[in-house]
Structures are given as C-alpha cells and as structure tokens.
C-alpha cells in the first residue's frame, strides 16, 4: 500500500470546531512466572519457541488451566482502578483465524469480566484532575509473535514468508477498557499520555507487571472521535492500534483529532476502522475496516470453569495493595519539603523510590536528592541504564555522606571513592585508605603549597591584598592542583586570607 498523506486541520482550528472523545484499551502483560493457562515460563527475549508446552501450541487434546496468580494480579489491578470485582466471571472464546493464535481462538473474557465499573483520577502537569471511568478490566492470553520476512512493509501483505514465535502465546494479559472520556477538550492529547502513564505506574507499583512499554508490557489502543461543538452525540471513532510509548500516545491522539477534523470539515464521514501508528512520520494509516459487527463468534469457554471470588479473598488481596502512586507522591513531597519542580524532576528521573530508601537509610532529603539527581543520574546516563540499576545502595550513600560531613573527604573525592566501591575495592573507608584519598588537613603541607601558589601568581596576590577578595579563587585552584585535590578548599581559602592579612 502506498502511503497517502491525509489532510489534517491545525490542532487549534480543530479544537475551535470540535470536542474530542477518547477511549483506551490498554493491554498489560502480567509478570507471572508461568503463562495464563499453562505451566510454560513467562519470559522475554528467550530463544524462539522454547517457552512452550503442548498447551501453548494448541496441540490436539490439550486443555487450559487458569493461573491463580494471574487471577490475583487481575483482581489487584481491578481494585487499584476502583473497580467492582465479579463474584463469578467466565472465560470465553474469541474465534478468528490467524497464525499467531495457536488454537485460532483467543481465550478471553467477554460478557463476564473479572473487574468492572471503576474510575481513576488523572492529574495533569498543572495539577488539573480528570476522572477517567473504567468500564472493565478482563483477563486474556497474548498471541505469539509474527515476523514477516521479505517484502517492503514488514507486514504480512507482500511478505515472502513469516516466522512465528509462540513464546509469547499464552502470556497473561489484563485488558483495561475505559468508558468514553469526554470534556478533555484541547487537553485530550495530554490526558491521553497521562492516562497511559498512570496505568503503567499503577501496575508497576502493584508489582504485577514489569510495565516496560518498550518490551510491550503495556500496549495502548487509542480510540478517538470528534463531535461538533455543542453536540452530545458521539462521532464515529477510529482505533489506533499499538501506540506503544507515552509520547506516541500523545502524538497519535493529536494526529487523529486533526485528521478527523479535516475529514469532517470536508463533509465526508469518518470510516470506522483501525489505524496504524507510524512513529517516523507521526501519522496514522488505515488498517482493516472495523465494525461493531466484527464476528468473533464468542461463546463461553467450555474447557474452563467460572472464576469464583469471595469477600475474604478479595479483602485479603486489597490488604496487600501498596499505597496508590498518587497518594504516595503527595506524602513523599510533603515529607521531603521539595518544591514542585524539584519533586517533578526526581519523579521524571525515576529515582523517587531510591531517594525514599536513601532517606530511610539516614541522610537528609536534600542530600539524597543531590546524590540521585547528580552523580548517580550522570553515571546512569553514560551507562545508559536506570539510576537504580547502577548498584548504588542507600547504605553506600550514607557512608559517603558521613565521610564528607566529617571532613575526611570532599565532594570531588567522594566521586573517586564511589568509583572504587563500584569497582569492588571495598567499603568507602577502605577505598579512601587504599587510594590515599583523605583530605589533607595538616596545615603544614598546605601552607607550603599556598606559598608556592602565591609566588607563582604575584599579581593575583597583590589584588587580594588590595581588597579584591573574590580573586582568591585562582590561588585556591593552584593549591588544589598542587595537592591533587586532597585539600579542604574551605580551609585553604581561610589560610590564604590569613597569610595575606585580609579579612574574609
């Protein structure tokens, strides 16, 4: 298919004429040890077709067995989204032929989902809160992964042949479906991004998913429709499939709003269809036509008995829920006394939990922030890993900080100490000892170095004597250089001023 560029209206113009309605289907891959209906390992990145049992291949005679942990994870997600948990929910078969689906039906939930009727508050950057209503969260299994070889598009059409990996087939999924989201207006793209970010954060916080979008742990289908300003009748929607990064969600919603507006402005009708998102061009192209009459011939899965819950079980799971992320953030910011900007930076850098642990280990919130936002973030960026993955423990930071506060080392030396610890040279104290990094605190060698520095820069010495105290920095620099950084810069400054008979 040749790429046809659709007409778009500017976002502002679109917003003058139309109100957008959004809807999301977010698929969350659970991080259970085994698959939804089999004992095969649920792993990522393994050799193709190794994490499989006869059940995952849909071999003749096999039967599914529901993974209890997956059910519990699903209930937790439902509870975290404020949903009701069904006393009795049932699996159904969604029948369609496709080679990534080993049985040619997907075992899913249809009219009896495990969780329904929920709502979550989504906070935008400026503090505006939107309530998004959740229609349902249901359990299902993932499909295998197809790789289309040959052909230009990487799609099945035009491919010479296709490879299929069933490692992912049967991985447990929870699909979270919203009710139509109205009233977001021009903030719809921002809300879209914030909603998906919130879902990702919730499932990660629950510990039920690795929640890594780049691995497809969280995948979003975004529904967009427009209605003329003042209308209350929902327009025809399109469903943009597999928008799999937060930024893409925002861009895809923006693009579809602009495209819909142009179509509607031209007097044409929106075609109800799935759309494919293209990150490179930041645009969508038409997928297959979709209608409510898509016939999956759903019927109750006869090989599985209903999932029956009871209050005791649900309450036990509720009691195991961690603090909701939004509440946790409010509490931590208040505890730490960070400004909004400081706190947002910490959250965006992904070090909030690390800071929390470090504060708990015994340093001030300011010190913890300095470490995680400074040196550790810098190193993480270079190593291209998450800061928490560098192996810096809260205890290590506490020890380094104690060494600094006692004057034994300074900030600059502390980085070298960190190098040594991360290189496995022992505790911070051992590294200081072994590398000879202690700050020089004996004034004798310092005075010698100060005299040398003053002699080397007589014009600067003269300026200082003349009252230009701020010029002292150049002499301090010389001393620090001569002592290879092992001097306490504050002490050096004092001594220089004393030497020159100037009041600091």
């Amino acid at each position, binding site marked *: 298919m040749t790429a046809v560029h659709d007409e778009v209206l500017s976002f502002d113009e679109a917003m003058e004429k139309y109100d957008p309605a959004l809807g999301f289907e977010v698929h969350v891959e659970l991080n259970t040890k085994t698959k939804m209906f089999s004992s095969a390992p649920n792993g990522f990145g393994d050799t193709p077709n190794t994490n499989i049992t006869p059940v995952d291949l849909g071999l003749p005679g096999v039967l599914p*067995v529901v993974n209890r942990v997956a059910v519990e994870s699903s209930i937790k997600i439902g509870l975290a989204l404020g949903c009701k948990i069904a006393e009795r929910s049932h699996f159904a078969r969604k029948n369609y*032929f496709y080679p990534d689906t080993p049985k040619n*039906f997907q075992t899913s939930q249809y009219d009896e989902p495990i969780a329904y009727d929920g709502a979550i508050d989504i906070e935008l950057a400026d503090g505006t809160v939107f309530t998004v209503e959740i229609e349902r969260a249901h359990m299902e299994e993932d499909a295998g992964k197809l790789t289309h070889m040959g052909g230009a598009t990487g799609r099945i059409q035009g491919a010479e042949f296709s490879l299929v990996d069933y490692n992912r087939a049967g991985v447990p999924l929870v699909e979270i479906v919203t009710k139509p989201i109205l009233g977001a207006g021009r903030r719809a793209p921002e809300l879209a991004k914030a909603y998906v970010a919130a879902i990702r954060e919730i499932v990660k916080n629950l510990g039920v998913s690795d929640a890594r979008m780049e691995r497809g742990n969280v995948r979003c289908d975004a529904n967009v429709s427009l209605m003329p300003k003042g209308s209350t009748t929902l327009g025809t929607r399109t469903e943009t499939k597999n928008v799999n990064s937060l930024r893409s969600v925002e861009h895809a919603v923006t693009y579809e709003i602009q495209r819909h507006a142009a179509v509607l402005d031209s007097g044409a009708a929106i075609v109800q269809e799935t759309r494919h998102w293209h990150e490179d061009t930041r645009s969508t192209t038409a997928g297959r036509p979709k209608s409510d009459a898509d016939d999956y011939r759903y019927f109750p899965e006869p090989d599985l008995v209903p999932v029956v819950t009871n209050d005791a079980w649900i309450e036990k799971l509720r009691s195991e829920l961690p603090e909701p992320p939004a509440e946790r953030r409010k509490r931590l910011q208040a505890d730490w006394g960070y400004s909004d900007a400081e706190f947002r930076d910490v959250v965006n850098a992904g070090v909030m939990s690390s800071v929390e642990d470090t504060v708990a280990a015994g340093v001030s919130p300011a010190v913890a922030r300095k470490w995680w936002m400074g040196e550790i973030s810098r190193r993480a960026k270079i190593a291209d890993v998450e800061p928490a993955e560098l192996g810096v423990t809260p205890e290590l930071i506490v020890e380094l900080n104690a060494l600094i506060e006692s004057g034994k080392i300074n900030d600059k030396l502390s980085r070298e100490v960190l190098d040594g610890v991360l290189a496995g040279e022992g505790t911070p104290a051992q590294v200081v000892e072994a590398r000879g990094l202690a700050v020089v605190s004996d004034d004798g060698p310092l005075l010698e170095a100060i005299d040398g520095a003053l002699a080397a820069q007589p014009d600067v010495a003269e300026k200082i004597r003349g009252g230009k105290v701020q010029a002292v920095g150049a002499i301090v620099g010389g001393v620090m250089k001569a002592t290879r950084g092992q001097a306490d810069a504050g002490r050096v400054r004092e001594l220089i001023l004393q030497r020159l008979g100037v009041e600091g």
Partner: protein
Amino acid sequence: MSEIIRLSAAALAQKLQSREVSAVDATQAHLDRIAAVDGSINAFLHVNTQEALLVAAEVDKARADGDTLHPLAGVPIAVKDLIVTKGQPTTAGSKILEGWHSPYDATVIRRLREARMPILGKTNLDEFAMGSSTEHSAYGPTRNPWDLDRIPGGSGGGSAAAVAAFEAPLALGTDTGGSIRQPGAVTGTVGVKPTYGGVSRYGAIAMASSLDQIGPVSRTVLDSALLHEVIGGHDPHDSTSLTDPVGALVEAARRGEVKGLRVGVIKELSGEGYQTGVLNRFAESLDLLRSAGAEIVEVSCPNFKYALGAYYLIMPSEASSNLAKYDGVRFGLRVVPEGAPTIERVMGATRAAGFGDEVKRRIILGTYALSAGYYDAYYGSAQKVRTLIQRDFNAAFTQADVLISPTAPTTAFRLGEKLDDPLAMYLNDVATIPANMAGIPGLSLPNGLADEDNLPVGIQLLAPARQDARLYRVGAVLESLLEDKWGGPLLAQAPEIAGVK
C-alpha cells in the same frame, strides 16, 4: 491361545496374577487374533506390537521378581484413536492428522501405563468422533463382527468391534452423544459414559468439550468397572475434572443389588421409531429386574424431545471452535495451493483437503449457530434446552434411583444405508444424547438379539451425576439375570468371523 482371548479382563487378570498365563502370552494371543481377523473387521488403525510386548515382558519380569503390581497389570487394551499416545500415531480418524505423533500422553494413557497395561493399538472411529457408524473414518469403515455388512456403531465402532471380535478384552472410548454406548449396543458389548468430569479429558481430542467424556468398553460390567477405576479420578490438567475420588465401582459391580431399587422407565425413550425387537427385549429385561425385586416405575422427561435438536447446535458450535486449530501451521497436513500461497489460502486448502464431509457439515453448522445475530436463537436456546433436560432428570431421579431405556432405537444397520441421510444417522443417538446434555453417567449392556434380524440390542442405565457406582450395581445384576437366561454371554452366540485367516 484361543482360550485366552475369550476370557474376561477380570478372569485374565486372575490368571496373570497366579502366573498361570504370562502377560507376553496374553498380549501375543490378542496380537495374533488381530492379525487373523482385523483384515475383515478393520477395528485397528495402528497395531502397537513392539511396545505392547515390551510392556508385557516387563510385567512378567516384575511379577517374577515378586513386585506388587496393579491388578490389571499385563491385561492388554485397545485405545480409540481420538486419545493421544506417545510412540504411536494419533489420527482422530482424519486425513488432517495422518502421520502425526503426539509428544505427550493423555492422562488416561498415563494411568494405563502406570497400571502397566500393554496398549495393543489405536482403534478406528468416525472422523473426530463425528458419526454413529464409523463410516466417516478417513481410513475406511469398521465392520460389525456379528455381520460384516453392517456398521459397528459410532463413533467408537473400532473399540466396540475390537472387544466384540476378541481382539482386545478392554478398550477406551469417548462418548459425546453416545459414541461409547451405541456401538456397545449394536456389537453386544458393554460401554460406559462416566459422569462428566469423572475421567480426565486431557489428551482426548476435543469434539464438543462440554459433552465429551472418556469411558470404558468391555465385554462384562465388572470389566468396565475395573477399567473405570484405573482411568477415573481428579486430574489437575483438566479444569472440568471432578475432585471426588473415583469411588468403589468394582465393589459395586461385584455386589450387584436391585432389591427395593426404583427403576424408572423413561416414557419418551420408547415406542415410535424403536424397532420391535429392541422393545421386546427391553420389556423382558424390565420383567427380569422386577422378578429380582426392583420396583419399575414410569417417569416422564417431556423436554427430551428437544434434546437431539439442541445437541446438534451445541455440539457443532463447540466443534467448529475446537477444530479451528487444524490449519496446517503447526502440525498435521499442510496443503499449499497453486499460485500465491497466502496464509488464508494455505489454511483453506489444508482444511478443504484434510476434513471429510461430515466434519465440514458440522463446522459449517456450528459456525452459523455461533454467528452474531443467530447466537441467541441457536446456541443460546440450545443451552436453555440443556437446562430443561437437566431439570427433567432431576425430577425423574426423585422418583427413581436409576433410569432405564433402550440404548439405541435399532440394531446395526447396513453399511452405506444411512450415509446419504445425516438426519436418519443422527436419530441413532436419540436415547444416549440426554445423558451427555446433563453430564450424568450412562451404561449400556447387551440385552439380547432382536427377533427380526438376530442382531444385538442394548439396554441403557442412567444414574445421577457422581453415582456411577449405581450403574455397576444394577448393571451387574441385569447382566447376570440375562446370562442365566441365555446360558452364557451373548457374544458366545456371535457367528465366527468370515474371512479369518
């Protein structure tokens, strides 16, 4: 040798335990019988000579070493080719699985192996168990040992014929709408459909998941009880498997008792459409039970008249989905058509070439019944009928401890006679289908020969769910009364098989 093959499984087990007969000799005797008669019967799709003899030899060695063995250790068995087995092909009677070997054993097969029962081979069936005559097998029909021009029933005609022809003392069948019991009736053998969930379905190739059940095929009621105890009981691989213990079925069969028992005759499963000889033998058996102290009562199940219609919506609906996996992608037949072979065309060509007419007929029926806009009228209504049938049974079981009816309306018909008339073929299961719809257990045992054609007729006992033991208790008494009347087992009256080498 010919003595060994005529023994019941219970009697053979005794002789094996006392080491009067070796397991190898017993197995070889049956293999010899297969070699001699199966050219005429075509009960076996695969004969498992090597492995069966190997298992038998291990049993003999273990017994010589004084090991404690399962009572049925060394008793050979045939397995319907709908049940997957490692080391042997499994075809489901279909071209689409020709040459396919399962990498895993069905749970029932695992249990046979644990009991060390040599598996003689895989028996013929209607393709994917869809049929009542075994004529829908892709590998040719099985013939009835009583008359080689007649059908052995279906879908498990292979297992029933193998047991009737003394090719095996025991066999496994599967019963979705009567596929164990109706072949039992027309071949003069015993067949039991256990309570749904009583025997694991893991490894039984699914036709209609909510109706399918594996069960025993044998020549005596006691033998079925013995086999039922081996294969029954909970299996974590089957979510619909009951957690109850299998129960004391063998003891029930050994201590048959009908005194004071209320036997309910189902009014709706009699009369029009039933052959005279079938009805005559049925009436005589009621007299026998009465004379033995049972109370015969009449019960009515008014919704049974909808059972066949509802069954032919639910069964094809589930089958259309269960059979979707046969697409040439992962296993079995793959047909690549001429021209650009897209995945849709490969799947289509594979299924067109691999499935027979009856399978296609049911897939089309089921696909239609599940379609949007038709679901409520067809599948939805059929499920309601199912509930009504269950209620009929519940009501009937307040009046009777067991229910009784002819197993099939007629004796074995001639090969080809009903092949062009699917509806006439479907009517064969009119008396057996209600038990599957309600999930209750049923047992068919030989009930004599019809006056018109001298062919076997069967009688069916039904019990409430989880009361399988009742079937054996009553069945054993009726069997014993009938054999006293006949002067021996019914199969003793079967003619010698023509064309025996």
